[in-house]
């Protein structure tokens, strides 16, 4: 392998990249845009639950309970219903997500020491929000119930909870580290998946074949400019995450730098491999979307916990490189894990990178002959 030839190919690729400033701009715009959206717009934190209250009791007790509801700041009462049918209407139309129905005998039962009823209806379509809403409501009603009983009755079991790594349960701290992986996968795939196919379609590939350039040199040369761009993208993303969004970075930055380089190499290699195998830009774009972006987004543990998935799919995630990188990122950012805990993940990424490189070489050889 001659370094000179690799350098020449890299230079040519760089020139071609520079000739397409729009793509380059988009390559840098995309991470910034994604970070802004994930950092500012998106939150898994649930509050501002639109609630409709149907108070048949209209007593000071029922009003006391309603005050508890609004005081929690999770629930926003949008309507005091006058008929039960309003509950149907509001939930059907999506104008309210929660309905609280206080029966006629509410305060009478409480004052007489009997058990009072409370009816809660939740819009279950968004099950995540519904589950969390029910959680809030359970806690709220328990507290209220305790207040009513004034401490009489046997004390129950108190659950003392400590939350590690992300004590305020900020969904941002959860999302942004994994986001870095997704951004890198998207950039890597977008940049490289069309590069070889494009040369075939334009006819310049035959010219390249006529040169003494060997397949390995061609692949490496093509990777280098995109590696630089991708790595710069990643650095910008990390800087924004730490300084703009105040995501804690408790681990070792040097380790982060090295492992990301390995991951990027693998991601770019996969893009080039797709490009080599498909030789058609339209097909390459569709395949790269399915083979790189979707797994990174859905199957990497970035947003959706792998432990929640069915076992078959969990097995599938083992061959998704993004899964290992997301674990590494979360460890380094939030847990500050020592190196030895990261080594298994890092090794997998290294193997993946080497495999894609070898596969790209092999496949390319075949097409020439």
């Amino acid at each position, binding site marked *: 392998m001659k370094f000179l030839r690799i350098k020449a190919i890299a230079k040519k690729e760089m020139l071609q990249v520079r000739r397409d400033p729009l793509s380059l701009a988009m390559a840098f715009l995309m991470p910034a845009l994604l970070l802004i959206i994930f950092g500012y717009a998106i939150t898994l934190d649930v509050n501002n639950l639109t609630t409709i209250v149907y108070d048949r009791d209209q007593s000071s007790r029922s009003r006391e309970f309603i005050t508890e509801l609004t005081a929690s700041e999770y629930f926003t009462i949008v309507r005091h219903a006058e008929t039960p049918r309003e509950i149907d209407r509001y939930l059907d139309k999506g104008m309210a997500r929660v309905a609280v129905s206080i029966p006629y005998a509410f305060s009478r039962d409480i004052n007489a020491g009997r058990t009072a009823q*409370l009816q809660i209806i939740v819009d279950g379509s968004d099950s995540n929000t*519904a589950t*969390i809403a029910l959680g809030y409501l*359970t806690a709220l009603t328990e507290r209220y119930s305790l207040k009513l009983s004034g401490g009489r009755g046997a004390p129950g079991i108190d659950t*003392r909870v400590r939350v590690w790594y992300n004590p305020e349960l900020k969904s941002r701290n959860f999302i942004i580290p994994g986001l870095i992986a997704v951004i890198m996968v998207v950039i890597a795939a977008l940049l490289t998946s069309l590069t070889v196919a494009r040369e075939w379609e334009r006819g310049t590939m035959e010219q390249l074949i006529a040169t003494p350039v060997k397949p390995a040199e061609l692949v490496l040369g093509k990777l280098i400019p995109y590696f630089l761009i991708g790595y710069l993208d990643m650095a910008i993303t990390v800087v924004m995450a730490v300084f703009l969004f105040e995501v804690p970075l408790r681990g070792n930055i040097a380790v982060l730098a090295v492992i990301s380089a390995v991951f990027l190499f693998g991601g770019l290699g996969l893009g080039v491999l797709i490009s080599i195998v498909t030789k058609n830009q339209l097909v390459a774009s569709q395949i790269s979307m399915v083979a790189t972006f979707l797994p990174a987004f859905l199957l990497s543990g970035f947003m959706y916990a792998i432990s929640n*998935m069915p076992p078959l799919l969990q097995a599938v995630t083992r061959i998704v490189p993004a899964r290992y990188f997301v674990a590494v990122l979360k460890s380094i950012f939030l*847990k500050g894990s020592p190196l030895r805990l990261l080594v298994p993940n890092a090794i997998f990424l290294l193997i993946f990178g080497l495999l894609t490189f070898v596969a790209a070489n092999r496949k390319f050889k075949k097409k020439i002959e």
Partner: protein
Amino acid sequence: MRKSIERIKQMVIKEFIQIFRDKRMKAIVFFIPVMQTLVFGYAVTTDVNNVPTAVYDLDRSPASRELIRRFSSSGYFDVTFSADSTSQLQDALDRGSITLAIQINRGFSTDLKKRKPTAIQVLVDGTDSNTAMVAMDYVNRIVQKYGKELSGAGVPQPLDVRSRAWYNPELKSKNYNVPGVIAMVIMLTSLLLTSMAIVREREIGTMEQLMVTPLRPAELILGKTIPFALIAIFDVVLVTVIASLTFHIPIRGSLLLLLLCTVIYLLSVLGIGLFISTIAKTLQQAMMATFLYYMPAVLLSGFMFPIENMPTVFQYVTYANPLRYFLVIIRGIFLKGNGITILWPQMAGLLILGIVVITVSSLRFKKRLG
């Protein structure tokens, strides 16, 4: 008028021939949306179950064992091991092999028997804040229920809360996510195909050849978008059938209404594909521009993240996103059985958006032709 339709028809046929000339495209256009839906449907779940858990039981009494039994039989927690020390728990949390650790101290059951207040310790890995919150809630529920049963045999509780979840009583997240996935998948496929098909024509140089035919610009636009509309509609039907068969998603509303709304939805989507084709000169740019639009569109559509939790500024931005309206429609039809009477505001919004987008894109397209 008849000549016009004939010309459009010919263009559509040519487009289909071109797309399917590559045999792999057949697979891609039909197989990939199906596969995406299946993967999404299974992977995208916010249902919390089988949370890897460890227990550290210092009490070792029937009471503590019963509590632990309740945790493992709930289905929410997968009790993987019993620790012998707190450092074991900490190590497992650090490594990520468990998400939750429960510690029951000595004196737990004696306190319960003496009716003294007692406590258990829970350590939770907050990295995945969503799972952590839901898991904590489940822990709480199980513990509270156990406490009530032990103490409250004769004592009446002040409040009896009955809660029900409508439309999706078992709170299965797939019922919420899979219909959304259908909308997402259709958008991506249509966007990519439309923008890239037009740009490729320009790259190869056959666009100029088309321009010297008697084709009028409007006919050209129609000829370039109708094939993808047809493919998209076919995909919607295909994916809906598979989704309901595989995931048993209820379809409580009218499928005809769904098709109608899909057509309106496609107005916007194809319009955006058209627009992208006017700013992209190469296929690479078309692909990047598609993604640049697609990712924010999905994130800010209410697909995964409820719009009402977003800052107000972003909530206003979502009004320009066709996916937002279509998601409400498709979820309404599947889960709530909503009809036109309830969905008409969404349909109107989608229609207006579609007309605006198509008009702007067509004008821009015509300008670039001339």
